[in-house]
């Protein structure tokens, strides 16, 4: 294997446990960065370019006050649920554009309990939208999956299958937050939050941090026995016809999605098709999102999800293990960390050192997908490569 100068590899990966955290946001982020540096066998002064993402109020670039004032360029990103994917893309682009060798990416958040409480004004909507109780993320997800189930004739029980799978994976994962198995019946019969979604079908905002070390070209093979190539990363925004959170109106006609566009772009850039993927991470903010995103990314046909879950396709020994760390449903969503958690999990699966259940058969091609407000998606294709 001869690495090209503009190939970018992940050579170090670390995460904290996700859940509630009483300390400072920056302290959490620092833990992840130091662990990722250790994993890559380097120290902070080796890092030439850094990117940090959070959806909170702290400043990622001020992490240098804890890690060391080395003078490196440190870019901050804040792109909602897609923050992790954008941070990774920014670091990759930085390595290529600046011909730097080593970059560090960190994503973190430490959210208050309960559903996110977005401000109508920040989204350019009148106060009436919040005053009348429509500025609620959970109702958006419910409205979207309600229509999707209708359009594709999908049994609502499929929502329970997604929940059961997530918590089953999490019960084996040391860093997941909610690790108690939940049966399909328990998921279906739990308190209704927003029809058709129950309490066990939503992720909750929580705390966590993830960090990755990237290296460019041959340097990656000097640093790591089993570097994982970032074969592609693609970011896309919404086009007319997409159905996004806090939409006062929708256009009739064909539905589009930034997830469809980002996934297509990522597969094309990597030179593979969805059928080549052996382990995947999808944005499962709630169970319905996983069902929709399985199809929007091209991994499963629209309407074929129910049979695939029933066939065990997405379990650890199935055709395509999905969200093998329990996904957002079991890890919660520290927004800035969530996309990097996905990459972390796939990297470790491809390196054969999964923290939880290891996908058998030495998978070599992985895929990650984040999606978030106000209608953006970032996807990556990751490939295991030996020297």
């Amino acid at each position: 294997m001869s690495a090209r100068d503009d190939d970018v590899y992940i050579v170090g990966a670390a995460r904290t446990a996700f859940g509630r955290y009483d300390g400072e946001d920056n302290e959490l982020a620092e833990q992840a960065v130091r662990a990722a540096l250790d994993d890559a066998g380097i120290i902070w002064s080796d890092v030439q370019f850094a990117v940090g993402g959070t959806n909170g109020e702290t400043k990622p670039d001020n992490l240098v006050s804890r890690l060391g004032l080395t003078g490196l360029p440190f870019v901050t990103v804040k792109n909602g649920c897609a923050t992790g994917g954008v941070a990774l893309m920014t670091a990759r682009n930085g390595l290529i554009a600046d011909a730097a060798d080593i970059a560090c990416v960190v994503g973190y958040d430490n959210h208050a309990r309960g559903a996110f409480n977005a401000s109508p004004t920040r989204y350019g909507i009148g106060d009436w939208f919040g005053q009348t109780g429509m500025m609620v993320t959970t109702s958006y997800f419910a409205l979207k999956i309600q229509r999707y189930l209708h359009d594709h004739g999908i049994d609502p029980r499929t929502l329970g299958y997604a929940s059961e799978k997530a918590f089953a994976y999490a019960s084996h994962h040391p860093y997941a937050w909610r690790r108690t198995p939940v049966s399909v019946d328990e998921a279906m019969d739990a308190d209704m939050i927003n029809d058709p979604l129950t309490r066990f079908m939503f992720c909750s905002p929580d705390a966590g941090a993830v960090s990755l070390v990237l290296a460019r070209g041959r340097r990656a093979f000097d640093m790591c026995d089993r570097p994982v190539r970032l074969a592609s990363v693609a970011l896309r925004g919404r086009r007319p016809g997409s159905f996004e959170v806090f939409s006062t109106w929708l256009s009739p006609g064909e539905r589009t999605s930034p997830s469809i566009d980002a996934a297509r772009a990522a597969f094309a850039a990597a030179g593979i098709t969805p059928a080549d993927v052996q382990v995947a991470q999808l944005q499962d903010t709630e169970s319905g999102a996983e069902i929709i995103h399985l199809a929007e990314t091209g991994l499963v046909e629209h309407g074929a999800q129910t049979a695939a879950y029933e066939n065990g396709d997405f379990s650890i020994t199935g055709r395509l293990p999905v969200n093998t760390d329990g996904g957002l449903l079991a890890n919660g969503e520290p927004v800035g960390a969530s996309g990097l958690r996905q990459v972390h999990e796939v990297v470790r699966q491809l390196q054969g050192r999964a923290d939880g259940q290891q996908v058998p058969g030495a998978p070599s091609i992985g895929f990650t997908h984040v999606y978030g407000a106000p209608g953006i998606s970032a996807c990556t294709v990751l490939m295991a490569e030996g020297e």
Partner: protein
Amino acid sequence: MTVQVVDETLFHSLDPVLLRGSACASCGAHVFPAMGSCPMCTGTDVADVALPAEGRVWSWTTQHFEPKPPFRTDSFAPFSIGYVDLGPVIVEGWLVGRTQWTIGEPVRLVLAHAWTEGDASIHTFAFESAGAAR
């Protein structure tokens, strides 16, 4: 008690109650509330229009927990919201009268009490059942 609406700019008229959207002269797209430009084709030749007052439930959910502020209510009870297909545009709003709905059933625009503020009853737009599903 006087009746006021949450935001007068949402309405073309109050009697009869009609929502005020805008239509793009270039591509024909309708949006709600009215905007000064078209997000579909980026055109700026747009004009305010009264939207149809009848449509069909395009999707629905029932809000079972009380939203955080700025949500206003006199006393919380679960309520339904939905997207209603009005033809040229699909509009999000309250579905009033019950908490279980069927996609495709006909509904019509009404005003509904949202919360009390001093002597005023603040109303918002909503959709109520207009008969059985197709």
